C-alpha cells in the first residue's frame, strides 16, 4: 500500500501493527495443528495425568508406529493417493480443454455454458448420492476406486474450468495466432505454445483438486464399503468410532492424513495467487 507522505512515526506504527497482525494470523493458523501433533506425541499416561499443558514432559512416536504397523491405515493412505492423483490429473486435463475453449472461442452458447457450470455449484450433493449409487450399480462402479475417481472428476471439473479459464485469459492471444500462421493447427499451438505457459496454472489446479479429493467424505462414505478400498476420510472416521478412547492413535492417524495435503499445498499455493493475478481478475 502507498504510505507516501506518512510521518516516520506513523510509518513505524504501521510496521509494528503489520507485524503484530501477521503474527496473530500465523499463530491462529498453526495452533490447532500444533495441538493435534502435541496430543499425538504425548504418552497416554501423561495425556490424562498432566492436565492441559502446552508441552508434554515426555514425547513418543509409539502412536505413529502402532497406526502404521497394526491397523488398515496404510491401505487408506494408498487408496487416497490413487484417488486424489487420478482425480487431479483427470480434472486438470478436462478443465484445461474446457477452460481454453471458454477463453478463446466466441460462440453463441458460451454464456449459457458458463451459467450452467455456475449452476452445478448449487446442486446439493447429498441429493445426488442415492441416484449415483443406483446408476453405478449395474456398471460395477460401486465400491470401486475408479467409480470414485469418475465422480470426483465430474464434481471438480466446473470450478477447475473457471480457474483454468482465468489462467488462459492471462496469456496473449497473439502467441497462438503467430503459431497458427506458422502452420500449426489450433490443437498443436495449444499443446506446444500455450500449455507450457500455463504450467503454473495447471499446477495450481492440480494441487487444488488433489486437496479437494483428499478431503472428500460423503461420497466415499456412501460408495465404498470394503475396508481395503476406503479412502482416508472414511477410514479415519471408522477409526475414530472404533478407537474412540485412544486419543493418541486417533490424532496420530489424523497427523499422517495431513502430511500429503499440506506438502502438496505448500508446493503450489504460490502459483495459485500468481496465476489468479496473471489471469486478469476482471470478472
Amino acid at each position: 500500500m502507498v504510505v507516501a507522505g506518512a510521518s516516520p512515526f506513523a510509518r513505524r506504527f504501521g510496521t509494528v501493527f503489520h507485524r503484530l497482525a501477521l503474527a496473530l494470523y500465523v499463530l491462529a493458523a498453526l495452533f490447532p495443528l500444533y495441538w493435534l501433533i502435541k496430543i499425538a506425541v504425548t504418552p497416554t499416561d501423561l495425556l490424562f495425568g498432566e492436565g492441559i499443558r502446552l508441552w508434554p514432559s515426555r514425547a513418543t512416536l509409539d502412536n505413529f508406529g502402532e497406526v502404521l504397523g497394526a491397523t488398515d491405515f496404510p491401505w487408506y493412505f494408498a487408496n487416497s493417493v490413487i484417488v486424489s492423483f487420478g482425480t487431479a490429473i483427470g480434472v486438470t486435463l478436462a478443465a484445461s480443454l474446457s477452460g481454453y475453449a471458454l477463453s478463446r472461442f466466441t460462440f453463441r452458447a458460451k454464456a449459457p455454458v458458463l451459467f450452467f457450470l455456475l449452476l452445478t455449484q448449487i446442486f446439493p450433493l447429498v441429493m445426488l448420492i442415492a441416484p449415483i449409487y443406483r446408476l453405478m450399480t449395474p456398471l460395477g462402479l460401486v465400491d470401486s476406486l475408479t467409480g470414485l475417481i469418475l465422480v470426483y472428476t465430474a464434481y471438480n471439473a466446473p470450478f477447475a474450468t473457471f480457474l483454468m479459464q482465468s489462467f488462459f485469459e492471462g496469456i496473449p492471444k497473439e502467441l497462438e495466432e503467430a503459431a497458427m500462421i506458422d502452420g500449426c493447427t489450433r490443437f498443436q499451438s495449444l499443446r506446444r505454445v500455450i500449455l507450457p505457459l500455463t504450467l503454473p496454472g495447471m499446477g495450481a489446479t492440480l494441487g487444488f483438486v488433489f486437496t479437494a479429493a483428499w478431503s472428500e467424505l460423503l461420497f466415499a462414505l456412501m460408495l465404498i464399503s470394503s475396508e481395503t478400498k476406503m479412502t482416508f476420510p472414511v477410514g479415519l472416521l471408522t477409526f475414530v468410532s472404533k478407537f474412540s478412547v485412544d486419543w493418541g492413535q486417533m490424532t496420530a492417524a489424523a497427523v499422517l492424513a495431513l502430511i500429503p495435503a499440506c506438502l502438496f499445498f505448500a508446493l503450489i499455493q504460490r502459483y495459485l495467487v500468481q496465476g489468479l493475478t496473471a489471469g486478469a481478475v476482471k470478472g
Partner: protein
Amino acid sequence: MAGIALNAPEGGPARRRTFRSLAEPWTYLSPTLVLIALFMLVPLVVGIGFAFQNVQILNPFKRGFVGLAHFEAIWQDRIFWRALGNTLWWTFASLFLQFFLGLGLALLLWREFKGKKLVQAIVFLPWAVPSFLSGLTFAWLFNPVVGPLPHWLHALGLLAAPDNILGDPALAMWGPITANVWWGIPFFAITILAALQSIPNEMYEAAAIDGAGTWARFRHVTIAYLIPTVAITILLRTIWIANFGDLIVVMTGGGPAGQTQILPSYIFTIAFRKLDFGYASALSMVLLGLLFLYAILILEMRKRLRSAF
C-alpha cells in the same frame, strides 16, 4: 471466482459458419460436459423424480408416486424450519467472519516484507487441511479432556465452567462455525490478494493526478476493482457453505437437541440414517430452489454494484 465472464461478448464481425468452426469449441468442452452430464445431471433428474415418490430402502413395498405429499410434509415439519433458521445463521456467521478476516489477511500480505513467502505459506495452510479433519481437530480442541479451549474460555470468564461448548445447546453452533472460519479464511485471502495484485499501478497514479485523496483512491480504484471478484467469490462461498454439512456431521451430528442441525446435515440424516430417499430428495429440492433464488439475486446485485463504483 476470478475471470468468469457471465456475459460473453457478441461474436465480432460476421464469419462464415462452417461446421468445423461450430464444432470446435464443443470438442474442447466435451470431456467436461459429458462427465457433468453423466454424474451430475442424470442423477439430478433421477433425484428430482425421487422427490415425488416413496423411496424407502427399509420399506420396499411402500413404493410409488406420492405427488406433492413430501412437500406438504416439509411445510409442517418443525425440524425443517428450525434447520432452515440454523442454516441461515451458520452460513451468515461463517461467511461474515471468513470474509472480513480473509480481507484483513489479504491487505496484510499486499506489500513486500522480509520472509513474505514463508508467512504466506503458513497462513494459507489451514485450507490444505481436509475439511472433515479440521472439524475433528476443533472437536478435540473443544473437548475439556484433551483440549485447551474450554479451560481458556473459563479462565477468561467467558464460560461458567470448563465444559464442552459442543454439548451446550445455546453455544454448540460456534464449534462448527469456528472450524469453518479457521479453514475458510485462506480461500478469501487468496482470491482477494490476487485481485489486489492485478490492479494496475497506473490506476493509482492517474487517480492521484486527478487529485483523488487516499480515501477516494481506495473507494474508486481498490474497491471498484475488488467488487467483481469479491461478489462472485461471496456468491460461490455462500452456496458452498450453505450446502456444506460435513463439519456438522463430524462435530455434533446436528445435536445437542437439534440446535446445530442445518439443512444438509438434516438431509443426510433422513437419507442415510432413516434411508428415506424420497423425503430427502424433496428437502434437497427446497434447498436447491432457495440457493437458486439467492444466486439470481446476487448476480443481479453484482451488475448494479459494478455501475455504482
